[in-house]
């Protein structure tokens, strides 16, 4: 009986709280692929943003108001991303953390610019995102020209004299990353033996796998997303091919291992230094673990995107996107993934990519964590 009363009390209190919050809160948005093949990453972003908003509200909100979070789904589809962006713009939401796919972030950013929305992407790495001189964009992740260079240099060193193939999925992200890696490889004096593209969403890669087998490929670099990369890997092993697969930051979710099974062991990918290991992230990682969420991949990046925005908004005393963006680019921000500073384009100044490797238990870790 007592517990029932308590529940009733808690329910009443939360109701009162939520209505109070509803009356005058500031809404911010997180937009990403909540459905579809990339939904694992959409969920990472949603988890990160939700935790950030909860923590900010627990610390008293922002500028005297509570924050509310609007979650939008672009399904990694450029058209849907654009309409999400227009919806967010017309709802007068001042800030969006999003999107995941570069092919969504780029078209959406123009609608955000028109709708007076500040956009910080936690995950879109295509250089073009910040190269168009839009006033409203920034990112807390690295760029594919950095990522491709790290991947290319690693391959040139660790797979010297071996046969290399490069595949891409023809998306803005995948093709962009594959091309940057190819550029870095060629600069290091390595010419790939095969360069091919496939369609994102394909399930049958047996024909490509047989080609890799014919050309005795030792390492295949995949510019694409985790689902297709996982299937390529699985079909390689089915055909008895032991080629190593390497890919980009889109592999940073455990779902990759659940697609490949134990065959995923030895797969390489590039990603920023694991934010979960940073001392700045310790308490927040524990908060996630208490909720049974592993804050992997872009979860903490999304958290950091919200942090950067809220700190800048606090500093200028308004949520006006133009003023906040000017502050973001001028200042230095203490976030869960470390101290961030932005250049005039909106790129962060200090992120380096490192190479990760999957093990046979479905976990990934940095190779040479101390750097080599």
């Amino acid at each position, binding site marked *: 009986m007592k517990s029932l009363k308590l529940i009733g009390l808690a329910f009443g209190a939360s109701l009162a709280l939520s209505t109070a919050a509803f009356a005058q809160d500031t809404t911010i948005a997180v937009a990403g692929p909540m459905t579809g093949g990339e939904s694992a990453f959409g969920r990472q972003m949603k988890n990160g943003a939700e935790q950030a908003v909860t923590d900010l509200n627990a610390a008293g909100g922002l500028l005297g108001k509570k924050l509310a979070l609007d979650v939008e789904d672009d399904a990694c589809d450029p058209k849907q991303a654009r309409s999400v962006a227009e919806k967010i713009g017309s709802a007068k939401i001042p800030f969006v953390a999003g999107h995941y796919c570069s092919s969504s972030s780029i078209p959406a950013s123009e609608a955000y610019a028109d709708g007076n929305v500040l956009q910080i992407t936690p995950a879109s790495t295509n250089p073009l995102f910040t190269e168009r001189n839009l006033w409203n964009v920034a990112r807390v992740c690295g760029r594919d020209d950095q990522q491709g260079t790290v991947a290319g240099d690693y391959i040139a060193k660790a797979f010297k004299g071996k046969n290399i193939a490069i595949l891409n999925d023809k998306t803005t992200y995948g093709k962009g990353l594959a091309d940057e890696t190819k550029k870095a490889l060629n600069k290091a004096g390595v010419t790939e033996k095969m360069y091919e593209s496939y369609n994102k969403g394909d399930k049958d890669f047996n024909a490509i796998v047989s080609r890799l087998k014919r050309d005795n490929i030792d390492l295949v670099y995949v510019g694409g997303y985790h*689902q297709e990369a996982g299937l390529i890997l699985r079909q390689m092993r*089915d055909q*008895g091919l032991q080629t190593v697969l390497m890919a980009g930051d889109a592999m940073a979710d455990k779902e990759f291992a659940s697609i490949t099974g134990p065959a995923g062991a030895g797969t390489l990918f590039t990603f920023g230094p694991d934010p979960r290991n940073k001392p700045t992230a310790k308490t927040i990682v524990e908060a996630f673990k208490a909720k049974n969420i592993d804050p992997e991949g872009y979860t903490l990046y999304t958290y950091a995107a919200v942090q950067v925005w809220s700190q800048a908004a606090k500093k200028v005393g308004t949520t006006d996107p133009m003023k906040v963006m000017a502050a973001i680019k001028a200042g230095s921000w203490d976030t869960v993934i470390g101290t961030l500073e932005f250049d005039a384009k909106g790129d962060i100044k200090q992120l380096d990519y490192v190479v990760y490797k999957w093990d046979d238990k479905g976990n990934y870790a940095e190779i040479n964590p101390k750097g080599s």
Partner: protein
Amino acid sequence: MDYFAQQVINGVVLGSIYGLIAIGYTMVYGIVGMINFAHGDIFMIGGFIALISFLILVSLGLTFVPVILLIVLLVSMAITALYGWTVERIAYRPLRHSFRLAPMLSAIGMSFVLSNYSQVAQGARVKPVPPIITGGYTLLDSNGFVVRLSNVQIVVVITTIVLLAIFTWLVSRTRLGRDMRACEQDQTMAALLGVDVDRTISMTFVIGAALAAVAGMMYLLYYGLVDFYMGFVAGIKAFTAAVLGGIGSLPGAMLGGLLIGLIETLWSAYFSVEYKDVAAFSILIIVLIFLPTGLLGRPEVEKV
């Protein structure tokens, strides 16, 4: 040569899956004269049911793979057939005597209903399973190129052949098959001669859905994942296969499926992977220019 053999294996397996789905399109078209656009999603439902029943069996502690596969096959065929029957009953039968486009629009609607339903019920994420059938055989080994035939591929092709044989027998030798062929020719006349037309059409959907469930299960075994939107692309490809083979013809659907699978694979093998769909559809267009009813289709006889 070895390389060619490997690619043919790849193409035949892919084509078998297309063919199994294509049969559902072709049977329904043959009898009701409509294109069941929801069929791709019935295939997706079949994949999900196979996944769920597989997980239930594993959690019950069953470990002997052939028994698991057989139970999963039967369960997913039965439940998916129920879906096929229900879709026909609520979305197509009430519209059967309406204008010609009505059932087709209803089918497109059903397709959305099914895919959104499984998105809501099963979540938006990709559902992977660990490899269930592992291992395989090395057929040829020369000059370092190894031709592999994996056990999954054998299972897919053999299941397809066996089921195709059963259903061909069903259509050509049984009472139900005779009723189906009668309805295909003339529904009114068949009804006058004592054929239960409604029941026969229902059974057609049931059989088509059961085969789609088999395809869904093969897909799950072969690629190791299902998701709620996989029905669309697979459905389009299978529909193309049905048209290529001659829509309305059972062996035509299988032939069309195999051809689409082989064209896609061989094109990816010797030319560019990017244009494999272009290649498949170009061949479809060329075939339809010279054989408007498809490879094995019979010219439409004007019903008087």
